[in-house]
């Protein structure tokens, strides 16, 4: 296999209902960094029906080229037509790197495509770099340069591994949503648009979609939330959770809680974080009035950023918090909500 034939950093530009998902922009932001290190360009792969008009938006967030596969078969996500489309793009255009979001779509599409094009896939990456493999030269073993080094947590976040794919192309990774930064929008940017259609023929692998049911409420599973505002017994009453809900709303987050809150009947079980509840890894976890029992910590310590507010300065939650504030949550939380609201209004 001529690995040097494979060039460019490619991104699967996920869209749902003809609206680009946030992960598409995040991947483009990272792809731009990688492309710079490799002295190459960034290509977005856009699959769907009547999606060509989304190409400008991809250009505005860093795509130099957009490969569009526009076909009625791709209207709603199904593994097979999407895998066929993406695998055909890979075989035709030979990317060096192929990034896919670690979403409910990407974690289905990624493995199927990687198996089809016979390459490796590293799941749920939280960091991507260009570097050498092996990272330190080993006598008697060729050290390859400009490899994609993919870093991911494993063992429930207790270990961190950096993985390379030195002998197969493309180097494929799924990337955890909410980790990479999108670039500032470049108004009026245009990408080179390449239309491609490998042809779609139904076979035994095509499934039939009988029904699509969208979630009626705006309550996202706390495991999927990017920002969690979590309350403990220190919040004082079920009514007082209102101040946490207000903070969550300003930040576009969700409210969750500790076991004590569920045991008191203040909140339902599906909002409980911890060993007997859910394990969450949001970008930001506010622990408000939560003492931080080890069972609670086990369910949230992998959060990227932990902010604790508690009146007890010896509360164990401060041992895992990145930023701890000792004080009265009844004063601090509403004031924080107001300050963030003002801050966000300034930006718009």
């Amino acid at each position, binding site marked *: 296999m001529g690995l040097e034939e494979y060039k460019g950093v490619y991104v699967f530009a996920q869209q749902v209902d003809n609206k680009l998902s946030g992960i598409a922009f995040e991947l483009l932001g990272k792809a731009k960094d990688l492309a710079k290190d490799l002295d190459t360009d960034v290509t977005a792969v856009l699959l769907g029906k009547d999606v060509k008009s989304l190409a400008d938006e991809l250009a505005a967030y860093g795509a130099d080229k957009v490969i569009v596969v526009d076909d009625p078969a791709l209207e709603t996500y199904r*593994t097979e037509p999407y895998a066929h489309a993406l695998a055909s793009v890979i075989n035709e255009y030979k990317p060096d790197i192929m990034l896919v979001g670690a979403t409910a779509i990407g974690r289905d599409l*990624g*493995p199927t495509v990687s198996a089809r094009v016979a390459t*490796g896939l590293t799941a749920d990456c939280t960091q991507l770099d260009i570097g050498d493999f092996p990272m330190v030269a080993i006598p008697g073993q060729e050290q390859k340069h400009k490899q994609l080094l993919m870093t991911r947590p494993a063992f429930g976040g207790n270990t961190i591994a950096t993985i390379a794919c030195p002998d197969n192309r493309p180097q494929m990774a799924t990337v955890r949503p909410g980790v990479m930064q999108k670039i500032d929008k470049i108004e009026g940017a245009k990408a080179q648009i390449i239309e491609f259609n490998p042809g779609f023929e139904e076979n035994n692998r095509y499934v039939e979609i009988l*029904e699509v049911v969208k979630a009626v409420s705006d309550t996202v599973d706390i495991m999927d939330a990017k920002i969690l505002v979590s309350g403990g017994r220190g919040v004082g009453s079920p009514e007082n959770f209102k101040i946490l809900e207000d903070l969550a709303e300003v930040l576009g987050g969700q409210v969750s809680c500790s076991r004590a809150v569920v045991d008191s009947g203040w909140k339902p079980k599906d909002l409980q974080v911890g060993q007997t509840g859910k394990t969450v890894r949001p970008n930001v976890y506010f622990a408000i009035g939560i003492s931080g029992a080890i069972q609670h910590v086990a369910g949230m310590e992998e959060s990227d950023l932990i902010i604790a507010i508690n009146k007890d300065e010896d509360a164990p939650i401060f041992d895992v918090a990145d930023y701890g504030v000792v004080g009265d949550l009844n004063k601090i939380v509403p004031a924080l909500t107001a300050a963030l609201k003002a801050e966000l209004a300034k930006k718009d």
Partner: protein
Amino acid sequence: MKVIVCVKQVPDTKGGVQFNPDGTLNRAAMLTIMNPDDKAGLEAALRLKDQYGAEVTVITMGLPKAEDVLREAMAMGADKGILVTDRVLGGADTWATSTTLAGAIRNLEYDLIITGRQAIDGDTAQVGPQIAEHLGLPVISYAEEIKIDGDSVVVKRQYEDRYHMVKAKMPALITALSELNDPRYMTPGGIFDALDAEITTWGRANLVDVDDSNLGLKGSPTKIAKASDKVRKGSGEKVNLDAEESVAYLVGKLKDKHIV
């Protein structure tokens, strides 16, 4: 109807996570369990057995001690257990694991293959779809409900903000979420029978249509460049200010981190 369930023996990272004094994971002290998503998949298969008289075969790839997880499955009600174990299969990534399991499954008849969505040690969610790809089967990931409809299977497929009801002609492969069901307990009689039950053990020679270049560490396209037990993070900053200063402090931190 014949159902194959792929299961994995994993360290119990939930209840009994043990740490060494330096903050690294103490693997030797950890118990092993049947991977939770796989157990939900097994329960789904056992319900098909209850309802339609399906024959349920559990298969695992691992060290010889992974036999325990097959006996547990049989004590819950599975009919057959197959252990795929061989020195040459060690160090496999998801690609090499899926080629191995596909190679083993090619020996078997089946209408449905059920795997867990992901294992709690690797969290990749890759092996199920990759097995389907090697076997040329339709795959439906993230199953929350499974029903049989004639020669097809109807699955409630979960996404972040919606679900799809999806119908696939069998044979098909489904990856199961823990939310699918509450797995049954082993029965005393089941445990007793499972102790004596015969477990089929297969090695490299039993794998059908798989090249050596796709097996084990050598056959794994992904290579570990560096691995470290994550040192648990220590406490960060703690401030004790008045409410107004506290708010200014937090807003500043959130801005630094590009949250707002």
